[in-house]
């Protein structure tokens, strides 16, 4: 995998979300992921970007969100950060709970966690930072086990 580190700063719009998603797909393919994994990375970045624009920055034109990509032999590390009011992780409902199954929203972070190997979320005060990692051969690959 060729080393890469790039960062993009976007306005808080849905058009920017689409742009971030397209960049994620391109860079995932460039980093060596197959079409299926690139699609999963793309969705994870989209969900994180939607959260940054809609829930974090609340479409505030004065606030930006940033998407950074870095890869190494271990995989692709993607960080999405916003300038919003922050996220209370203790209030996140479980979208798989029977009472939530038919709710219209609340699946974004769940999909990030389902599609990426590692997801970490932290408050920046102000803002939220989501770090997502996808290993090239998945979490059970021998080289990853050795690196633990």
């Amino acid at each position, binding site marked *: 995998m060729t080393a890469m580190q790039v960062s993009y700063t976007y306005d808080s719009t849905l058009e920017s979300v689409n742009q971030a998603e397209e960049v994620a797909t391109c860079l995932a393919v460039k980093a060596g992921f197959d079409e299926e994994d690139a699609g999963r990375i793309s969705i994870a970045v989209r969900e994180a970007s939607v959260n940054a624009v809609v829930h974090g920055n609340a479409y505030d034109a004065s606030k930006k969100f940033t998407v950074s990509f870095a890869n190494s032999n271990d995989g692709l590390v993607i960080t999405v950060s916003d300038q919003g009011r922050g996220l209370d992780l203790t209030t996140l409902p479980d979208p798989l709970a029977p009472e939530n199954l038919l*709710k219209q929203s609340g*699946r974004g972070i769940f999909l990030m966690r389902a599609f990426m190997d590692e997801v970490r979320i932290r408050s920046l005060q102000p803002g939220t930072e989501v770090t997502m990692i996808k290993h090239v051969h998945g979490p059970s690959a021998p080289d990853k086990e050795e690196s633990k």
Partner: protein
Amino acid sequence: MTMKASTRQIDGVTVVDLSGRITLGEGSVVLRDLVRELLSKGGNRILLNLGDVTYIDSSGIGELVSAFTTVRNGGGELKLLNLTKKVHDLLQITKLYTVFDIKDDETAAVASFGK
């Protein structure tokens, strides 16, 4: 590519052929308006053909769920047809695969609606 939708009538069932993306700010609104319009005209037996849907996000999933519950609460039925692998995986991961009535043959799907 934004979402496109067209409808066909087969034996009292409205088949909605969707193509493109069902995502926040794009296909989600189109789908919501379409289902509302069908219900307002009395069409409450709806088969959503997702065979040409290329991309769906959590908002799109939410819109499918909303359409399903809206139609069901109105005494109708909404079923899904021709899931791509991507959409199939998403519905499986979110445990919605067992909630929706999912078909892969249009004729059989149409026949499965209650008369």
